[in-house]
């Protein structure tokens, strides 16, 4: 593989199918995610979104086809940071301790860790919580910590599986906006799973609508909305935003009835 190809596509999904025993969950799917893209996977519940993400994370092996991250077969903890629907923080660690773990696994020195933990927490909008216990902060704050922790993983790919689905509407909107900024600033490649059409259009630079199980690509839509320097309300008020929402909404409904 040439190095230009490596930088061009962070994730390569090639003829991938996945079955759980007799249940075909995904595929066949062909998909390339360019470096720096914010790819959103939308689809009805049970259509195979999480499975596809787990294939990229290396937690599942495809039944057929290949998944590659920067040309390599994915392995858990190697190619990507991962955020789940639930924060999944370790309750026996402090908030800061949870973020620190990722740095420790990456071999970052103790002094360096002490410096970077507060930085990472600040980056997701958290101040003075490093010493707190996990259960002493709100659900939204816990999910922010989970994102900070995933950002501490030293690789440019970030995988998120409905990370805001369990949050209240207000908190969700704040986190969406903050994630949009963080990923724009850090130049991360993101694959983001959601069942919310609005969330997809708001966050994505490209939206993939999946069919019902087994999940295949029903629509591949580029979102050329301004990504920075625009307020969320302003963005949502654009006519093109409404048009994209309509297009994707239709596709999701059609895909679900197929």
């Amino acid at each position, binding site marked *: 593989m040439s190095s230009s190809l490596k930088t061009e596509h962070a994730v390569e999904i090639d003829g991938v199918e996945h079955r759980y025993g007799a249940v075909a969950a995904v595929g066949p799917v062909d998909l390339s995610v360019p470096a720096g893209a914010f790819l959103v996977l939308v689809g009805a519940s049970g259509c195979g979104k999480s499975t596809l993400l787990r294939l990229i994370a290396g937690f599942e092996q495809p039944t057929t086809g290949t998944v590659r991250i920067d040309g390599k077969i994915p392995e858990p903890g190697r190619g990507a940071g991962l955020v789940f629907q639930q924060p999944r923080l370790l309750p026996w660690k402090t908030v800061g301790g949870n973020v620190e773990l990722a740095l420790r696994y990456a071999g970052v020195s103790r002094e360096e860790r002490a410096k970077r933990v507060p930085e990472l927490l600040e980056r997701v909008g958290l101040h003075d919580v490093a010493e707190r216990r996990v259960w002493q902060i709100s659900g939204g704050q816990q999910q922010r910590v989970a994102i900070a922790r995933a950002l*501490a*993983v030293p690789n440019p790919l970030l995988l998120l599986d409905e990370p805001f689905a369990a949050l209240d509407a207000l908190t969700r909107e704040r986190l969406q906006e903050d994630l949009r900024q963080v990923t724009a600033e850090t130049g991360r490649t993101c694959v983001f799973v959601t069942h919310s059409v609005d969330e997809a259009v708001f966050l994505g630079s490209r939206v993939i609508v999946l069919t019902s199980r087994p999940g295949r690509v029903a629509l591949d839509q580029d979102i050329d909305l301004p990504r920075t320097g625009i307020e969320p309300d302003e963005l949502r008020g654009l006519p093109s935003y409404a048009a994209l929402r309509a297009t994707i909404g239709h596709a999701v409904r059609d895909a679900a009835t197929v």
Partner: protein
Amino acid sequence: MNAEWGRRIGLRVVAIAVLGVLWQVTATVMDNPTFIPSPAAVWHRLIQTSTVHDGTRGYSGHLLIEHLGVSLRRILIGSAIGVAGGLVLGVVMGTVGWIRVVTEPVVTFVRALPPLAYFSLFIIWFGIDETPKLWLLSIAALPPVAVATAAAVHNAPTALVEATRALGAKRWQVTRDVVLPNALPEIFTGIRLAVGIAYSSVVAAETINGVPGIGGMVRDAQRYSQTDVVVLGLFAIGLSGLAIDAVLRQAETRLIPWRGRA
């Protein structure tokens, strides 16, 4: 919360007072101190065994506190060895499938045996000094810790294991940072059980060459029909057991602040 506490304490004090009165009444009615010694007689024994009187030191040449100290030391060493062994065995059992398959019935078998049953074997193997007593207590304390640890390690929460692996943790790091801390509450329950079993086995362990030791004291007293000493020994063991369990509970809330919150 505080009123609740006060109520509980009050209830217990009343219950103890009622038991004491019942005891005194029964002792008075029976009027047979060899069968039921009165509270006053036991109290007198407490004073007597705790002091040097008429040139005699406590009971059988040792103060009550010395008997208790020796027994506690045995319990401590025995359960420490048993807990350590149980922890190691439990982690291995919880991690390696075939070892669990092989050892599980053995551990359950040993657990079902009354400690006195294998004590004879240890006497034959190790003589009548400290060694067989410590073996008895260690073997008695090991199974509950091994079983609790194995179950907790085996049932490590997939969600947290996956999240930690996704951060780049190696296998041993997952064990250190997720599996063991997650098992800590169950391990602690196992430890409390183990110490309890060591406690209830120590009197048995001290039936042979057990002086100094509460078990030896009780056995000698039984031989000379000194029922008040027997009762005193029971109180010494039972009350110190309560105290140790309270200490363990305290340690538990200190060490596992997340218990019930995760």
